[in-house]
């Protein structure tokens, strides 16, 4: 009877061991454990001969039967089916032997030899089946290993694939961003090239104007000098005149000389106008003659704002302007070409005065002309603002404002060089000029200068 229980124990132990790396579901493991405990208990009871023997003998057969039934009917154990039939003949012979011995001991003695022989055959069968089962198990194991390996390879391939996909996506986005950068750089290059071409054109235009200006300046000097001289001579003549006795002819001569003098004054006037234009053109192409020196910008602004105001008051059509200075007194000395930079202040103020004069003429005395000049320390840069409350700059001409020879002034008043020169001077200080304006409200010129110039 112990043999039956040993078979139970062995079957359960073997099943538990055959679980493989992924193991059985927990409820199966629990069955194995309880089964093994039951088998061990039955073995101990069998050895101790604790009555009633018949109960545990039947229990032993029930247990092994249950285990075989369990193996055959559990899906997870399907591959162990041959294991279930391995001990079946032994169990059958033992059961029959037991039944016969219990029910008819006499008959048992008669056929005991047959039982022994059946036992031997059952054992041979069990061993054969066992070996067969082992072989099957090994094949299953090999297959399992192969399929596991394949699965592993499949998984790693999938992993590599997804990694590659991530890499490809990364590279693609890199390439796209590089493409964008390149496109940007190309656009920048194109616009720079256009600017260069424009500057080249302007530079050659500048050289041309400088040449022309010089060629004009010499004869113009003669025109101015001789007309001035002639006016002086006419003054001398009129000093001599009283000594000549009066006569109708003298009257006529004096009259004519007066005309000649007024003509000469006109020649001188227009000559000096032309001289101003030529001078601006030369200044434009050549730049100033001063040097960069640490200067007090506020003092320069005070001096030239004053000069611009009085200059305007002394000229024809003076206007009343309120000039306000809002200067940052903490401003350090900055490197300036004072001679050039004073022209910036003069030009911007002159433009403001001219624009506001137009507004006064259009709107009358209701309008109070006002200019504010501000300076501000911005750390490594200095801000200079010149703001007027004049008619403003229309958007459509804002771009053209800094172009040479562009002017909004009527007739002969402007050369169209003032702002262009102003811009050049600011650029030569490595600064920038920005124009903000609102029609009929204000115009603001914003100059940013670096404190240190390379």
């Amino acid at each position, binding site marked *: 009877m112990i043999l039956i229980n040993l078979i139970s124990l062995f079957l359960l132990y073997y099943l538990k061991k055959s679980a493989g790396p992924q193991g059985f579901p927990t409820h199966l493991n629990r069955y194995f454990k309880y089964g093994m405990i039951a088998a061990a208990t039955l073995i101990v009871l069998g050895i101790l001969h604790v009555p009633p023997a018949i109960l545990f003998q039947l229990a032993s057969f029930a247990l092994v039967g249950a285990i075989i039934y369990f193996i055959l009917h559990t899906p997870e154990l399907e591959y162990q089916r041959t294991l279930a039939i391995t001990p079946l003949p032994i169990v059958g012979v033992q059961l029959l032997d037991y039944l016969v011995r219990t029910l008819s001991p006499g008959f048992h003695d008669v056929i005991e030899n047959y039982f022994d022989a059946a036992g031997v055959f059952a054992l041979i069968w069990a061993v054969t089946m066992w070996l067969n089962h082992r072989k099957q198990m090994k094949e299953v194991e090999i297959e399992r290993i192969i399929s596991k390996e394949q699965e592993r390879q499949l998984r790693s391939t999938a992993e590599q694939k997804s990694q590659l996909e991530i890499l490809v996506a990364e590279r693609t986005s890199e390439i796209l961003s590089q493409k964008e950068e390149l496109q940007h750089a190309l656009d920048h290059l194109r616009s720079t090239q256009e600017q260069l071409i424009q500057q080249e054109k302007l530079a050659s235009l500048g050289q041309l104007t400088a040449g022309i200006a010089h060629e004009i*300046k*010499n004869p113009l*000097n*003669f025109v101015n000098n001789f007309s001035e001289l002639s006016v002086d001579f006419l003054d001398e003549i009129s000093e001599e005149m009283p000594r000549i006795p009066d006569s109708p002819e003298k009257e006529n001569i004096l009259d004519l000389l007066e005309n000649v003098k007024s003509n000469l004054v006109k020649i001188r006037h227009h000559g000096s106008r032309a001289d101003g234009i030529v001078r601006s053109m030369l200044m434009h192409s050549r730049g100033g003659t001063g040097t960069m020196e640490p200067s007090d910008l506020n003092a320069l602004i005070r001096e030239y704002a004053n000069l611009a105001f009085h200059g305007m008051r002394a000229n024809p059509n003076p206007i009343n302007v309120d000039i306000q200075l809002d200067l940052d007194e903490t401003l350090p000395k900055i490197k300036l070409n004072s001679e050039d930079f004073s022209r910036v202040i003069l030009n911007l103020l002159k433009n403001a005065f001219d624009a506001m004069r137009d507004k006064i003429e259009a709107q009358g005395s209701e309008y109070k002309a006002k200019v504010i000049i501000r300076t501000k320390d911005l750390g490594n840069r200095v801000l200079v603002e010149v703001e007027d409350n004049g008619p403003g700059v229309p958007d459509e001409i804002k771009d053209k404002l800094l172009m040479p020879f562009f002017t909004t002034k009527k007739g002969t008043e402007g050369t169209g060089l003032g702002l262009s020169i102003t811009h050049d001077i600011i650029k030569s200080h490595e600064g920038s000029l920005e124009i903000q304006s609102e029609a009929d409200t204000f115009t603001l010129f914003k100059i940013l200068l670096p404190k240190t110039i390379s």
Partner: protein
Amino acid sequence: MKILFVDDEHDVEALFRQKFRKEIKSGVLELAFAFSGKGALELLAAENPPKFVYVFSDINMPGMSGLDLLNQIKARFPEIQVSMISAYGDHENYDRAMNSGAKGFFTKPVDFERLKLEIASLADKN
């Protein structure tokens, strides 16, 4: 007092003669004109020692430039004062002229008041 003006523009002569009309008339000044550096040197060399005390020269002239003329005059007639009159009032010309021994530097258009003062100061010394 003899003064020489050097300029390739011929009308300079008429202009200066008229400007200094009174001084010429009264005999304070005697003006001479040359229209090239070469002509100026010939005039200066015509008398030995030359009677000129002052030379005013243009810088941009065909042939010998005013600065070359300045150097030659300073080398051959060191006692004669030389000032430059130029339309190009830039640093380079100014520095070169002053380093070569020019007494003054006038830019065109000429400020005649300044020129007259310069000549008057010379006349006082004489």
